[in-house]
C-alpha cells in the first residue's frame, strides 16, 4: 500500500470521515454511475489524487456496474447454485428482458448479480432495492414487483451455555474494567487459546500482544464484516442480531491493546447490517458503554462503521484495510503486518466478527471455561451455517469435534425432500469438498485439513445427488476469477485460465490443470489464489470421472 497516499489521506481526511469508496457509492446510488465530476469531487474531499480515485471507481462491483432507480440484484452464490443452478438468473433475465449488468433507462430497471446475499438458508435469493426476497416464489414475486423480506430462521445452539447465540450483556466489559488490568485481559484471551474464526485460525492473544507492544500510543481495532464467502451468513447474523456482542468484544480488545478506536467494515451486500450496528452503537453510547469515558473508568473507546462496495478479496486483511481507507481493495505483501502498520499507518488488530464476539464470554467466564466448551477439540465453540438443501437450515452454535455427519444429520436434519448428500463444501469457496463417504470426519481444524478441507469460516454447503461436479468446478472458478484483486500474476491470470478450461465444454487436460494448481498454491500472494485450488483438488480426488478430463 502506498505510504504517500496514506500521508495524503491523513492530511485531509479524519479516520471516521466518509471514505472515497463510500462517497463514490453515494454518487452511484444517486445517478446510477460515476462521472468524471464525481471523481474530481471525491478527490477534492478526501485529499486523494484524481487518478487514484478513478482507480477505486474501476475496482468495486457496485461502482463498476451501472444501476437503475430500481436495481434487482440476483444472488449467484454457492447456496443459490446448489438450490437452482442458474435457473433463477435465467428467469430474471427473461422476465426483466435484461442481461446481467444491463440497465433499461426507459423502465428505470437494472439487473446485476451479487455474491452472496447471505440468505443461503432460503436460496435462491434476489435483492430488489433494499428488500431481500428468497426461497420458493421469490423470483416470481420480484417479477411482479411484489418482493417481500424473506424471514430468517432463529439461530440455535447445541451447547447449554452458548457464547455466541445470545444477546450481549456487557458483563465481560464491566468485569474487566472493574477488576482487571489491560494486561490481565490480554493474558486471559491468550490463555483461552482463542483462534481467529475467519479461516486462518491465528491465535488472537498473540495478535493482541503484537499490537500492544507496537511503538506509539494510538492503535485501532478493525472488525472484518466483509463476510464474502458464498454460503456463509454467520457474521451477518451476529452483526444484525447480536451487535452488542461485537461492540463489547471490540471494546475489550481496545482495552487490552491500548486502542481507543474501532472500525467495523460491513459489506454492501448486507443492507440490514450497517443500520443494526449503528443503532447498537448509539444505544451503547447513550448508556456510557462506549465513548470518552466508558462506565466512568477513564477508558475511551469509539466505534464507527464503514462500508465496502462489492469485492470478495476485501475480506483479506490488507485489502480490508485498503478498503477502509477508501482505496482499491487489493492485497499487499506482508510484512508490514497490520499489528505493526495497519489502518492509516497505525498499529491495528484486525479480527473476524465471530472472533471478537467470543471475547465477552472469555472476559466474563474465564479462559478455562472457554477451553472446556469443546473437550478434546479446539478451544471454544463455532457457529456453523447450513444451506437451503438441508431440512433445517440456519446458524447453529456447535462444539468442535462432532463429526460432519452429526452436524448435517442431527443439527440440520439431513437434506430436504428425500434428497441425499453428494458432497459438502465447508468454509467457503477456498475450502475443500468432502464427499458423502467421508462425512464421518470430525469437524475440527486438524482432521478436516487431513481430508483436504478446512473449518474456514464455518459455512456448510451441501450439494445433492443431482449436482454435476464439473458444474461445481466451473461455478467456483468463475467466482474465483471474477474476484481476483489482480495484484499477483498467478491468481490474476491463472484463475482466468482455469475458469476458461472448465467453461469451454472441451475436455480439461489434467496434467496442465495440476501444473496450474501448483503454481496457484505455491506462488499466489494471498489465500484467494492459494486457496482456490483446494476444492478443485477435492473434485480431482473424489469425482475425477465427472470432470471431463483428458
Amino acid at each position: 500500500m502506498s505510504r504517500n497516499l496514506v500521508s495524503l489521506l491523513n492530511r485531509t481526511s479524519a479516520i471516521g470521515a466518509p471514505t472515497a469508496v463510500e462517497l463514490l457509492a453515494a454518487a452511484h446510488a444517486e445517478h446510477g454511475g460515476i462521472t468524471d465530476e464525481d471523481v474530481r469531487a471525491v478527490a477534492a474531499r478526501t485529499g486523494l489524487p484524481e487518478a487514484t480515485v478513478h482507480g477505486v471507481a474501476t475496482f468495486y462491483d457496485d461502482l463498476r456496474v451501472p444501476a437503475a432507480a430500481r436495481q434487482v440484484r440476483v444472488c449467484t452464490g454457492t447456496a443459490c447454485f446448489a438450490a437452482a443452478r442458474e435457473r433463477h438468473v435465467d428467469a430474471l433475465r427473461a422476465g426483466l428482458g435484461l442481461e446481467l449488468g444491463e440497465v433499461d433507462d426507459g423502465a428505470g430497471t437494472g439487473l446485476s448479480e451479487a455474491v452472496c446475499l447471505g440468505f443461503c438458508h432460503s436460496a435462491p435469493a434476489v435483492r430488489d432495492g433494499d428488500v431481500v426476497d428468497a426461497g420458493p416464489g421469490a423470483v416470481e414475486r420480484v417479477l411482479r414487483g411484489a418482493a417481500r423480506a424473506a424471514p430468517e430462521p432463529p439461530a440455535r445452539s447445541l451447547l447449554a451455555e452458548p457464547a455466541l447465540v445470545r444477546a450481549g450483556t456487557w458483563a465481560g466489559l464491566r468485569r474487566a474494567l472493574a477488576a482487571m488490568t489491560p494486561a490481565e485481559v490480554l493474558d486471559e484471551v491468550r490463555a483461552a487459546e482463542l483462534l481467529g474464526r475467519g479461516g486462518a485460525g491465528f491465535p488472537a492473544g498473540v495478535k493482541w500482544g503484537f499490537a500492544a507492544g507496537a511503538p506509539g500510543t494510538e492503535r485501532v481495532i478493525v472488525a472484518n464484516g466483509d463476510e464474502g464467502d458464498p454460503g456463509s451468513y454467520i457474521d451477518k447474523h451476529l452483526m444484525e442480531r447480536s451487535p452488542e456482542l461485537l461492540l463489547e468484544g471490540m471494546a475489550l480488545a481496545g482495552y487490552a491493546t491500548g486502542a481507543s478506536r474501532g472500525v467495523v467494515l460491513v459489506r454492501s451486500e448486507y443492507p440490514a447490517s450497517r443500520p443494526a450496528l449503528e443503532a447498537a452503537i448509539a444505544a451503547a453510547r447513550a448508556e456510557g458503554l462506549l465513548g470518552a469515558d466508558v462506565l466512568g473508568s477513564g477508558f475511551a473507546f469509539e466505534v464507527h462503521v464503514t462500508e465496502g462496495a462489492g469485492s470478495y478479496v476485501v475480506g483479506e486483511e490488507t485489502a480490508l484495510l485498503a478498503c477502509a481507507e477508501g482505496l482499491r481493495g487489493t492485497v499487499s505483501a506482508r510484512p508490514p503486518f497490520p499489528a505493526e502498520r495497519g489502518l492509516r499507518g497505525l498499529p491495528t488488530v484486525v479480527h473476524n466478527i465471530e472472533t471478537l464476539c467470543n471475547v465477552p464470554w472469555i472476559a466474563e467466564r474465564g479462559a478455562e471455561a472457554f477451553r472446556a466448551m469443546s473437550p478434546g477439540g479446539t478451544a471454544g465453540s463455532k457457529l456453523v451455517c447450513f444451506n437451503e438443501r438441508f431440512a433445517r437450515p440456519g446458524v447453529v452454535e456447535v462444539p468442535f469435534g462432532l463429526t460432519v455427519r452429526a452436524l448435517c444429520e442431527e443439527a440440520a436434519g439431513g437434506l430436504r425432500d428425500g434428497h441425499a448428500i453428494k458432497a459438502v463444501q465447508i468454509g467457503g469457496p477456498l475450502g475443500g469438498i468432502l464427499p458423502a463417504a467421508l462425512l464421518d470426519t470430525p469437524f475440527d481444524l486438524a482432521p478436516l485439513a487431513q481430508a483436504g478441507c478446512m473449518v474456514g469460516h464455518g459455512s456448510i454447503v451441501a450439494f445433492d445427488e443431482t449436482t454435476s461436479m464439473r458444474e461445481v468446478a466451473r461455478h467456483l472458478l468463475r467466482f474465483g476469477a471474477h474476484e481476483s484483486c489482480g495484484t499477483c500474476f498467478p491468481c490474476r491470470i491463472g484463475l482466468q485460465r482455469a475458469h476458461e478450461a472448465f467453461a469451454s465444454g472441451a475436455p480439461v487436460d489434467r496434467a496442465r490443470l495440476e501444473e496450474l494448481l501448483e503454481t496457484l498454491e505455491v506462488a499466489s500472494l494471498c489465500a484467494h489464489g492459494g486457496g482456490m485450488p483446494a476444492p478443485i483438488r477435492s473434485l480431482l480426488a473424489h469425482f475425477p470421472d465427472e470432470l471431463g478430463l483428458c
Partner: protein
Amino acid sequence: MRVSVDGAPVEVPAGATVLEAVRAAGGDVPTLCFDERLSPFGACRLCLVGVDGAPAPVAACTTPCREGMRVDTGDERAARAARAVVELLLSELPAAPEPHTELAALARRLGVGEPRWPGATHEADHDLRHPYLALRHELCISCGRCVRACDEIQGAFALTATGRGFTANVAAGIGAGFRDSACVSCGACADTCPTGAITEISLLDLATEAA
C-alpha cells in the same frame, strides 16, 4: 546480520530483504515487478526462494532477512512456478513482447516459448495523444512499476491501477490519458515499464512516422 545463500555466507545490513542478500552473495533470481528504485511490491512472484523454516517458497523481494537464515535459490517448485507465471503472462498479450523488453528477455532466460494457454487476451487500446509518452494498454501486465514510479519518484500521482482480476490495467488521470492527467512528462514510467506498454515517443519515432 549474517545469512547464507546457497551455502555461501553473506553479511547484510539489518532490514535487508532476502533479494538483497541473494544479490549481495552474487546470486540472482528472476524479477519482473521489482525495480530497486521503488518499494517492493511482491506481485509477479518470480523471485520465490526457499528459506529454512518456511513450508513453501517465499518472495525474496518482500521477505526480510533474519539472523542465520539459510536461503536456497534452487528450489524446484519455485523454478517451476516462475516458468509457469511467465507463460501465463505471455498468454494474456495479443502478441509476443518486443525482443528488447525485460519480459522478452526473461522468457528467453527461463526457456519459455509460445504460451500453450488458449483464451482471452487484452484488447488493443492506445493512448497516443501525449507529445512524449505513449500507452498501449494491451501490453500492460499490471506489475505496478509505473504507478509506483509516478508516486514514489515523481510524486505526480498521474497514474493508477484500474479494474481487477484479468481486466486489471493502468490508466493516466481519470482514464482519459496522459494529456489530461497530472503527468509532468518525467518519463519515469516509461523508463521502468518491462513490456513496452508505456514508451517514450522520441524525435526519431516522429521522424520515422513522418517518413
